[in-house]
């Protein structure tokens, strides 16, 4: 068995410490954690005893080949997948199960395929992200904040989302997620199907969100090279199991990705 030692161990020692707005060290255990999660779609075992977590302020990637169960990880958090075993912990307490309650807890989800509302304008799409916000001034503040990060949304705010390019729709999807002012942002394949130059832009924006808004981010990605440049840690999934957890450097220097993506050896 040539799988690295860390496999199936979600915690990794010595993450780079980051200071939050109060100036104290932030890595004090996971803010969001999956513990022994299994998800079954009928006979298909999408996740099998998966444990992983993200600490406050971190950017963590979930990587793996097609069908590995990456999206299912995020769906399990959002209450959108049939979880048969295990528990999701949020700030060390079990997370409420109902999908519509999760955003109030401070978790926003940007689904695979963007899924913006094409028959609504950009501004209306963004407003969909902050339902429970009654305070008009705060809503405007958030709109301004999102538009500052994504100037393209500002200039097209009255256009229908259907009139935007794929990259712009992805920015809109990110912006819509940010309108909830989440503590944790879950991103599912934000660069899928985008041109290389746009891919870079999206990764830059993700870094910007992390640096400036101090948002904790869990990002599912196909684009390994790009995502490893912007994350603090990464979990590698294969066939519904965690096969590696480590820093980008640890991953680059191991041969885990070759195993998983090229199937040179049966990684667990």
């Amino acid at each position, binding site marked *: 068995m040539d799988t690295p030692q860390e496999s199936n161990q979600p915690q990794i020692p010595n993450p780079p410490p980051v200071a939050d707005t109060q100036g104290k060290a932030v890595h004090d255990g996971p803010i969001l954690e999956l513990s022994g999660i299994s998800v079954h779609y009928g006979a298909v075992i999408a996740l099998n005893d998966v444990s992983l977590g993200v600490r406050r302020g971190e950017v963590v990637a979930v990587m793996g080949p097609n069908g590995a169960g990456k999206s299912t990880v995020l769906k399990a958090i959002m209450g959108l997948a049939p979880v048969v075993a295990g528990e999701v912990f949020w700030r060390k307490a079990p997370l409420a199960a109902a999908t519509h309650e999760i955003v109030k807890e401070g978790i926003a989800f940007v*689904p695979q395929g963007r899924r913006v509302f094409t028959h*609504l304008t950009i501004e209306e799409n963004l407003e969909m992200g902050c*339902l429970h916000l009654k305070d008009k001034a705060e809503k405007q503040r958030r709109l301004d904040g999102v538009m500052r990060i994504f100037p393209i949304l500002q200039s097209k705010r009255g256009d229908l989302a259907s*009139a935007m390019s794929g990259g712009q729709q992805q920015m809109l999807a990110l912006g819509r997620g940010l309108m909830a002012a989440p503590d944790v942002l879950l991103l599912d394949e934000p660069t899928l199907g985008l041109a290389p130059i746009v891919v870079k832009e999206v990764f830059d924006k993700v870094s910007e969100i992390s640096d400036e808004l101090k948002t904790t981010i869990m990002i599912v990605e196909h684009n390994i090279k790009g995502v490893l440049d912007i994350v603090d840690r990464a979990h590698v999934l294969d066939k519904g199991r965690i096969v590696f957890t480590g820093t980008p450097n640890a991953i680059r220097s191991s041969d885990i990705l070759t195993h998983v993506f090229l199937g040179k050896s049966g990684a667990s």
Partner: protein
Amino acid sequence: MQAETEHDRSFTQIVRKPQALVAAARNNVELWANLLIIGWALGFMLWQGVGFAITVGTVFAIWAILSVSLNLVVGFTGLLSVGHVGFFGIGAYTVAILTSDAKYEQLRTEAIPTFGWPFFAALPLGVLLAGIVAIAVGVVFNRFRDDIYVLVSFGFAIISFNVFLNWRNLTRGAFGIHEIPRPAVGSWVLDRELEFLIFALALLGLIMLLSWLIVTSSFGRVLTAIREDEQAIAVFGYRTTHYKLAVWTISAMMAGLAGGLFASWTRFVDPNSFILLESMLLVAIVILGGLATIWGSLLGAMAFVLLEEGMRFLPFLPAIHIGQARLVVLGILLVLLMLFRPQGLVGRYRL
């Protein structure tokens, strides 16, 4: 569902190249649909005279209330329902039972109690009752996936028809309810057809206004989002089942209103007016006019009524075959429309 943007051609382009006007006009199906149907309606009126136009207008108003209200559910929210006729029937029967003062003893058929309420007291109750039934039914419906909705609503239409037919000591079953009075305010009775037409059009205007307010509100935007991607909106904290239940109930209450209007207009109701086919026709009207457009539902209803009434005048068609003929023609029209213009006459979305 795809957006249609081809109609948003810039005006300046046409001015600069006049021949583009011809091309634009040829492509502007919406404009042609509007002109055709409105022109057809006007021509019909001139040809058959005002009396007939008043009848057609009233029938149109009732169908238009139904189709605009159904469009809230089918078009704006994306829930295909063929159960609308049930709420139409509840409104009609409530008004019929409460307002009728028929002397059934003289008719020598089954008697039911008569109440002799005024129309304007019975109508709100009919609307309310349709709403209450809609909430009860909707709570059950919300347990189903959207693609099952149509089947469940089918079941509702069948059940409500059978209640109308078989709850005989309330509805008199197949005998129907007679002597339903026209609306009255004090001593002023709306018994002239023109007065009733104006009343019906006023109610239609009210329903259109209400629908417009709904679809342009933030509530309406959530409905649009639900139609597009219910899961994506649920993730942002929206309890989509509540929104669906709300619009379903509002729509049902509008259908109940149309029912009350219908009962008072025909002055007689029996279960035959509330068969499943009527619901199917209504869905066809909504699709024909265009999903998620209030104006489209008006056009659809108008086209349908003109078609139906117009066939009476085909010289070669024996009267007894009119019913089938209009269905055949409507069926052919629908097939053609789905082939060449799946978004309906003036719609932007496909089913």
